[in-house]
Every structure is written in C-alpha cells, then in structure tokens.
C-alpha cells in the first residue's frame, strides 16, 4: 500500500520540481515549490518519519515559503528576467544535467540490495515523543548553537537591509 503512495508522491514531487524551473512567473514557481515540498512531506510520512513530515510543512511551507512569497510581492514584476526566462547556458546545462542524472541512476542501480529486515521495525523510534526525548538527550547543545546561528542570521539580514537603504 505505502509503495503505491511513495511512487505517486515521488512522481508528483518531480513534476512540481520541473514546474519550478520552467514557470515564467515567480509567483507560480513559488506555489509549485510549496506543492513540491508538501509532496516530500507526504513521502516522509509514508516512510514513518512523522516528525520530519510535520516540520517540513511547518517550517518550510509555513515559514520559509511565506517569506519568499512576501518578497515576490514586494518586487516589481516588470523585470527583464520575466521576458527571457532561461539564460544562454540553458542548453548545455540541460545536457550536462541529463548526464548527471543518468550517472546517478546507473550508480544507484548498482548498489547492493540489502534485506529490508530492519525496516520492518519502522515507526516506533520516529514517533513524536520518543524522537523528541532522544533528540534533546543527545543534541541539546547543538540545538542551542543552531539558535545562535539563527540569531546571527537575523542580525545579518537586518544589517544588510539597513546598509542597502543607506546607499
């Protein structure tokens, strides 16, 4: 059953990713990106990693993407980059990207197939409570460091905007 879901959402995620890089309007691209992320969240849920699925939606879709959409609305939509969507490097880049994807496909196909015995026990360790306890036991210090990084990010963004408004 989960196999079908995984296949379905994978296909959807790829489709939305392609839409992101082909849509002319940034707003449409942004909405495609939101859809892409929701698909990924669904994939995580299928895998049993509910924690990640929840945060994928909350943080990415709820915070980051909303922020990005606000920015799009701030900016002028009569930009030159709207008329010519693709840069001059488009064709070689597509060729090279095709090569990369093919190589990845070949390489991953050669990986040894291991018995999915461990995977049958999935579900327990990634429930919200058990994961939270384990996370805070092991990674509380790293988590605090990450908050410092966030603080610095906020200060830097503020400083950049202030500097820009002066110039």
């Amino acid at each position: 059953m989960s196999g079908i879901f995984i296949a379905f959402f994978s296909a959807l995620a790829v489709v939305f990713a392609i839409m992101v890089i082909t849509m002319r309007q940034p707003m449409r691209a942004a909405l495609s990106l939101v859809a892409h992320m929701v698909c990924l969240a669904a994939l995580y849920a299928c895998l049993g990693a509910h924690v990640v699925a929840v945060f994928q939606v909350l943080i990415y879709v709820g915070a980051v993407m909303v922020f990005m959409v606000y920015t799009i609305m701030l900016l002028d939509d009569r930009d030159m980059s709207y008329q010519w969507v693709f840069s001059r490097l488009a064709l070689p880049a597509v060729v090279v990207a095709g090569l990369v994807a093919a190589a990845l496909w070949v390489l991953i196909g050669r990986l040894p197939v291991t018995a999915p015995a461990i995977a049958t026990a999935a579900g327990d360790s990634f429930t919200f409570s058990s994961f939270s306890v384990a996370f805070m036991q092991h990674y509380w210090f790293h988590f605090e460091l990450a908050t410092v990084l966030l603080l610095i990010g906020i200060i830097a963004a503020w400083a950049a905007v202030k500097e820009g408004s002066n110039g």
Partner: protein
Amino acid sequence: MDRYQFLVALAGLIFTLGLLGVVIRRNLLVVMMCLEIMLNAVVLSFVTTAVRTQSIPGVAMTFFIYVAASCEVALAMAIMVILVRRRHSLDVGTFQDLKG
C-alpha cells in the same frame, strides 16, 4: 531496486533538477527556489537513510538543515531587496562583477 534505493535515486534526480534550475533560470528569486529544491533533495536522502537504518542522527541532521535553510533565506531575501533597489533588476545575467 528496493524502496530506499528508489528514494535515494529520487533525491539524486531532484538535486540535479535543482542544480539545473540554478544554471538556467535568469530570475534571481527562482534561482533561490531552486536552491531550496536542492536542499530538500539532501533532506530526502538523509531521511531515507535514517529510516532504513533506524538511526536518530540522520533525522536530527534534517533539523539543522532546516535551521541553515531559514538563515539562508532570511539573508538572501535581504540581499535581494538591496540588489533590486540598487540595480533595478533581478536578472542574474546582468551581474557580472566577478569577471576577471
């Protein structure tokens, strides 16, 4: 090919798509979005591996990736606003100050 292999391959494909988008799109905002796609591909591979081995660190790592991504977006948007104010353009092709 079992499901985990399939998901890692999917992560590779999405990563490639994101990278491709970074190269071919002219709009700086969309380039930023493509970067987000690449980050998501990485997260996907982390989660896949973590679930397969039932290990905490892989999942913990995704949270730190979220933190980094949030910081990155906050800064990137600030810079983008400045750029638009100064250069009146979001076309990546017009920024060639790195030319040697």
